[in-house]
């Protein structure tokens, strides 16, 4: 169903946050950028911008999809956008392109699809990029307030696994949880937090400096593989809590077990829709059986993105 984008109301939001999100327009080809600037968008509600060669420009805005009137995206515009996303330096983003996405300044994720070049069963590169999806990161201060009472036990944080489908706010919740634990809150004083930010989405570091609010006692390993980063942080920064986003591979789980064995607490997110999904995941199910996780927090987007669907303890007993 075609819903043309019309002039939108500018919502009241933190000015810094709006400005930061508005900056994302810089990565688009000049012609696309002018159209988007002309829409007077509320960047707090803008979730995704999709470009496909020969197809209309599509926005996901306030959970609704909109086609931008009469704008058909051309090959040149896609190429120009890729050039800007990679800062004119495709070589510097080889690894990210292999994974299919690049995180740009502000923590926004730009996904690519096109023709995949394989070598020895390994993705070597991606060429003829024809599809781009820009997912805007939203920093929501206070998003984790609801779960704070559940992640502490007598003032000490607990191993927490945040379970959420894509696009339901797990990174936003994790980021705010990191900020709150680092700064201190009503349940405990501030403590050292280490973040392994493999995709630069949590802290959104630019030139090594976090662009998001992640707390004054937080150390960040930016663009570092999770399994290596967790162990590096333990050895170098002695954090009380380590936070990582989107675990899933066997090597991540090995590192998690190592960290848990070091007396350091974990805040981790994973893709899933309910606790049962985790129990059936090949590598994660061991951690559930071993009762490593003291809290499971399940998110969905019922009513709003980042809705807390349920919270469980380590035995799987529902607390909320």
């Amino acid at each position: 169903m075609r819903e043309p984008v019309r002039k939108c109301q500018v919502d009241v939001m933190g000015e810094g946050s709006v400005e930061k999100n508005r900056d994302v327009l810089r990565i688009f080809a000049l012609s696309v950028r002018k159209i988007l600037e002309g829409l007077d968008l509320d960047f707090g509600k803008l979730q995704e911008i999709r470009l496909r060669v020969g197809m209309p420009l599509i926005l996901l805005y306030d959970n609704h999809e909109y086609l931008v009137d009469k704008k058909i995206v051309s090959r040149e515009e896609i190429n120009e956008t890729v050039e800007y996303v990679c800062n004119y330096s495709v070589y510097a983003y080889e690894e990210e392109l292999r994974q299919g996405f690049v995180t740009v300044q502000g923590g926004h994720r730009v996904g690519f699809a096109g023709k995949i070049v394989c070598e020895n069963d390994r993705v070597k590169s991606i060429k003829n990029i024809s599809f781009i999806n820009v997912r805007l990161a939203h920093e929501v201060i206070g998003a984790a307030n609801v779960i704070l009472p559940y992640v502490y036990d007598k003032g000490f944080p607990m191993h927490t696994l945040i379970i959420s489908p894509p696009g339901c706010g797990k990174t936003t919740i994790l980021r705010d949880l990191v900020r709150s634990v680092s700064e201190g809150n009503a349940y405990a004083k501030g403590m050292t937090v280490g973040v392994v930010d493999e995709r630069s989405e949590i802290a959104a570091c630019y030139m090594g400096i976090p662009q998001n609010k992640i707390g004054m006692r937080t150390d960040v390993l930016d663009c570092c593989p999770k399994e290596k980063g967790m162990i590096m942080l333990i050895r170098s920064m002695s954090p009380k809590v380590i936070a990582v986003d989107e675990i899933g591979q066997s090597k991540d789980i090995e590192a998690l077990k190592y960290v848990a064995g070091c007396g350091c607490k974990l805040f981790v997110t994973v893709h899933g829709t309910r606790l049962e999904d985790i129990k059936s995941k090949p590598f994660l199910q061991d951690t559930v059986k071993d009762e490593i996780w003291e809290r499971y927090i399940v998110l969905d987007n019922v009513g709003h993105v980042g809705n807390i669907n349920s919270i469980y303890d380590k035995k799987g007993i529902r607390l909320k």
Partner: protein
Amino acid sequence: MFGIKACGIILIIVASSGIGFSISNIMKLRLLELAELKKLILMLRGEIKYIGTPLGEAFGVIGRRTKGIYSTLFQDTEKELEKLDGKNIADIWKEQMETAQMIKKSHLSDNDWKWLLNFAQNLGYLDKEMQLGTIELYMEQLESTLAEGNRSYGKNSKLCKCLGISAGLLLTIVFL
């Protein structure tokens, strides 16, 4: 009368010798600038090969590390690249080379500039291997230009100086 003539002779010899020495000096400065450029391109290779720094950032780092004539070119290019305003990297580089006042102060030859312009046209494109290949190719070009320049400098420098002095003496004889 003799005093005036003597002064004229001295002036003619000094002026023509000065021209000879000046040409020789320009040749020397060109070689120094080429050597500096080679050093900067080596730094660029290091930034790309070992750190994977994007071009804009790498240009900025290099520009800030040199005080020579290339500082403006590299730093201004970084600023232009950050604007992301619809130009490709070759156009930006060309513009910067043309607009930078340093060109007027530079002692590089037209060919040296042409090579530098060609070098930038393939930057940023494709993978790291391609970048390093482009840089290697340009490095080879620079090295051969430098080697040739050094060879001809030894020979031509003396020639220019001698010609300058000789021309001065010849003019003196003619005017006398």
